[in-house]
């Protein structure tokens, strides 16, 4: 009885040792490694969420601006005619010379594309560009070139209107 009790006790202690070495210690190591991986994953989270938030704000701002532009330029009638009318209205009364204008049809969501050239004094040309793209005209810039001209500054501008939201 005494011998078997001691053998049993020894077996129990051996089992406890094996359990510790074979299960508890490796599990502690795995838990520590996993926690480190959790830490790494969480460390990259703020940067990722900041990038995502910036992209979402940008997309929301673009959506808002695009909706406003599409609302300003969409409507009944030929988009080429509407765009031409809008640009002509901006050119009228502007103290610039050599104004040239070419409007062509665009492929949706682009309604029409316009090329504008003009010469004038530095301040007048910049005022004209600002007037062409002022809120409400629905004009979207593609390319603008400013270089010395006969009257001071020469402008070449390519822009387009939208018929629908892209």
């Amino acid at each position: 009885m005494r011998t078997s009790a001691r053998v049993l006790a020894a077996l129990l202690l051996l089992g406890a040792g094996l359990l510790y070495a074979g299960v508890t210690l490796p599990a502690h190591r795995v838990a520590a490694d996993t926690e480190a991986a959790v830490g790494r994953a969480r460390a990259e989270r703020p940067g990722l969420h900041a990038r995502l938030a910036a992209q979402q704000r940008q997309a929301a701002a673009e959506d808002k601006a695009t909706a406003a532009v599409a609302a300003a330029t969409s409507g009944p009638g030929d988009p080429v005619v509407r765009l031409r009318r809008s640009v002509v209205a901006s050119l009228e009364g502007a103290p610039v010379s050599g104004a040239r204008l070419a409007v062509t049809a665009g492929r949706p969501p682009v309604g029409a594309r316009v090329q504008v050239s003009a010469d004038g004094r530095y301040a007048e040309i910049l005022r004209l560009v600002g007037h062409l793209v002022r809120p409400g005209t629905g004009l979207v810039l593609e390319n603008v070139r400013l270089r010395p001209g006969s009257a001071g500054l020469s402008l070449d501008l390519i822009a387009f209107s939208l018929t629908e939201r892209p």
Partner: protein
Amino acid sequence: MSQGRDFSGHPRRAGLSFWDAGLLAAAVAVFALSGYAAGRAQSAVEIARSRLEEARRDSEGARDRLRALESRSGREEGLASRVLLTTEAPPPRVVADLAALVPPDVRLDGVGLAYGRGVELELQVVARRAQAYDLFLKRLTESPRISAVSPGTENRDGEVRASVRATYRPPGSLRE
């Protein structure tokens, strides 16, 4: 196991001694403790794995949403970005910001603005002295409104004539 005889003459089973009973009880306790510790360690692993899974799911979800937003702007070929930049960075504002960076001995002979996912600038620069041109480049690179400054060909024989490419970032721009 020791055996004795009682008055009936039958063999008598001897009980565990105090020490053996204590040893057995301690061994049982150690085994139980070890089992408990193993269980705790396993459950700690499970908890850590589920936290890792959650963190990875969260990151993956954010990455998916980011990819979706980036591919959206790719599909639109930058149309929405042009719309926003026309509002946020009209040529008079860009020119005014550039003019603030031009030193006295430097003039801009031409300015090209291409609206896309950013406003790409192409500047034709004339400087009376090479040092003035270098100062202009320094101001461009240090400006928070300008990035990706790329000086092109330059003629430094007396008056400097050079072209510079850069990207304009409007105030309050959200995208890097």
